[in-house]
């Protein structure tokens, strides 16, 4: 699939990865909190589809409480990316694995942007 604009796509992925990093931070910080369910972001493909359609206004920090009284699960939203709860409590190893993924993807993302930016500047020089 040929992107409309590579820089836009990279921008969106960077945004999504940042939200994921924040979700992972929340999980690790609350690993010992009773009743806390691990959260993760919606898949990137969904984010791409959402931005192509006009985004319906959702107030940032929109909170939904689940009906179960024992566990307070929350859905929240950052930067246009939804963060959804799972059914499990936090496993630190799992979170470290995900953090590694985020780190690698982010590094690749910034390197790609840097390279194409450099090539662009090369051609635009006199």
């Amino acid at each position, binding site marked *: *699939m*040929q*992107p409309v*604009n*590579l820089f836009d*796509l*990279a921008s969106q*992925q960077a945004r999504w990865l940042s939200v994921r990093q924040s979700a992972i931070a929340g999980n690790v910080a609350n690993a010992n909190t009773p009743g806390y369910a691990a959260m993760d972001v919606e898949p*990137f*493909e969904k984010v*791409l589809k959402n931005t192509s359609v006009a985004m319906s206004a959702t107030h940032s920090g929109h909170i939904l409480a689940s009906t179960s009284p024992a566990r307070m699960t929350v859905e929240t939203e950052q930067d246009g990316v939804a963060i959804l709860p799972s059914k499990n409590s936090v496993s630190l190893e799992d979170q470290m694995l995900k953090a590694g993924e985020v780190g690698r993807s982010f590094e*690749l*993302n910034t390197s*790609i942007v840097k*390279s*194409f930016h*450099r*090539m*662009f500047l*090369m*051609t*635009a020089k006199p």
Partner: protein
Amino acid sequence: MIGGLESLIGVGKTAATKLDFGATTAPAAGSKVGGAQASFAAALDAIATNTVSSLQQAEQMSAKALQGETDTRGVVDAVMSAEQSLQTAIAIRDKIVSAYLEVSRMAI
């Protein structure tokens, strides 16, 4: 983005064809010069096409990587070779343009 780069490389090609036109008016072993001219233009054409296609390849690989596919080495190789051919094409373009300017300044 690729379009913009194409037009910039096109400047080099235009300057090159102008140069070749100048060369044919000089008295020389006609067929040899003719042959050299044809292959030179063809070579430039090949370089420009090659550059554009490697840039497109790099763009495609990068787009795939950004959407989650994990052929990291493939992306890196594609981007590096795009940069190499781009750098080469630009160097050639610059040389051609400066040669053209030099020729145009020559007293007849």
